[in-house]
């Protein structure tokens, strides 16, 4: 009995599909997100690398009267004036204490730029996009708004913050 040969066009289509599927797998593998991981107290947080403009050592922060407590003040960054905020205070937690490891992470999103005082910058890493999970449902609504996701890093649970939504929430609360 003569074996039926698939049409050439079917073979070509099959090959095209196979290659596309391989391409997708490769793309998924390659979809990396750059993240800046830092700590506040014992908690691990991260910001997207694209939102982080620079990381500075802590300098004297000049307080500005008539602003909320979480607004720590302003600093001179090579002739530019930047604000500095304390996320912990904004979330109703004890204020961030400075130490030699403390850093000011300058973040920018939607045209708003501000420094964020952190205890320590732990790492700058590339993470596969699919490793970032949805934020846990037990988070308070006020915090959940500016949490973009969560991921595991060296046995720690890291909360990924959305800088744009964080800044938005800070102005909204007034």
């Amino acid at each position, binding site marked *: 009995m003569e074996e039926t040969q698939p049409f050439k066009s079917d073979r070509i289509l099959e090959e095209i599909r196979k290659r596309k599927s391989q391409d997708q797998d490769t793309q998924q593998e390659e979809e990396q997100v750059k993240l800046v991981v830092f700590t506040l107290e014992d908690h691990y947080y991260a910001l997207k690398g694209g939102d982080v403009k620079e990381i500075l050592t802590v300098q004297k922060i000049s307080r*500005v*009267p*008539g602003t*909320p407590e979480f*607004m720590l003040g302003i600093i001179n960054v090579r002739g*530019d004036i930047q604000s500095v905020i304390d996320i912990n205070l904004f979330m109703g937690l004890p204020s961030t204490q400075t130490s030699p490891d403390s850093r000011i992470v300058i973040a920018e999103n939607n045209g708003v730029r501000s420094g964020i005082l952190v205890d320590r910058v732990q790492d700058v890493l590339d993470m596969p996009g699919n490793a970032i999970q949805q934020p846990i449902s037990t988070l308070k609504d006020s915090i959940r708004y500016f949490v973009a996701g969560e991921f595991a890093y060296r046995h720690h649970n890291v909360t990924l913050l959305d800088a744009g939504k964080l800044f938005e929430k*800070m102005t909204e609360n007034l």
Partner: protein
Amino acid sequence: MTTALEKFTIEGFQALLFRVQDILFAVDLEHIDELLELHQLEVGGDRLRRFDRLLPFGSAPVIYRDPRILTVHYRGSRLLMQIDQPEDITFIRLENMHPLPALLDRVRETDFIWGVGLVREAPVLLVDCLKIAAACQQDGSLAGNAILNSETHAKT
């Protein structure tokens, strides 16, 4: 035709620098009539406005170490503002002035601080005395004239 007014460009302003609670402020010297010591104020002390009450400094008490009084005339009234530790008079150039950072600008409670100057690389908060005087006039707390015993000799 170009008028004299159109030719006028602001290069900066002569500023009085002072410090309250270790924060450096600057006011436009053009807006200041007098810089007095506390003892030169004889009557109307109730009309004296402490700087830290005009610009909320938070819950911690503000201690004045070397208090002085700035007098600012505004539309027929006079603002008597108690400041602390006058430090210097310096010209702040326009290129050394910056608007408030966007986030801070959105969360501030008053518009008395309108920008930031850099003096010897240190940030200095630029305060608009006339805006303060206008606000005080609106709430009726500006002093009338003739409340300073030393009005004549203070100017000399």
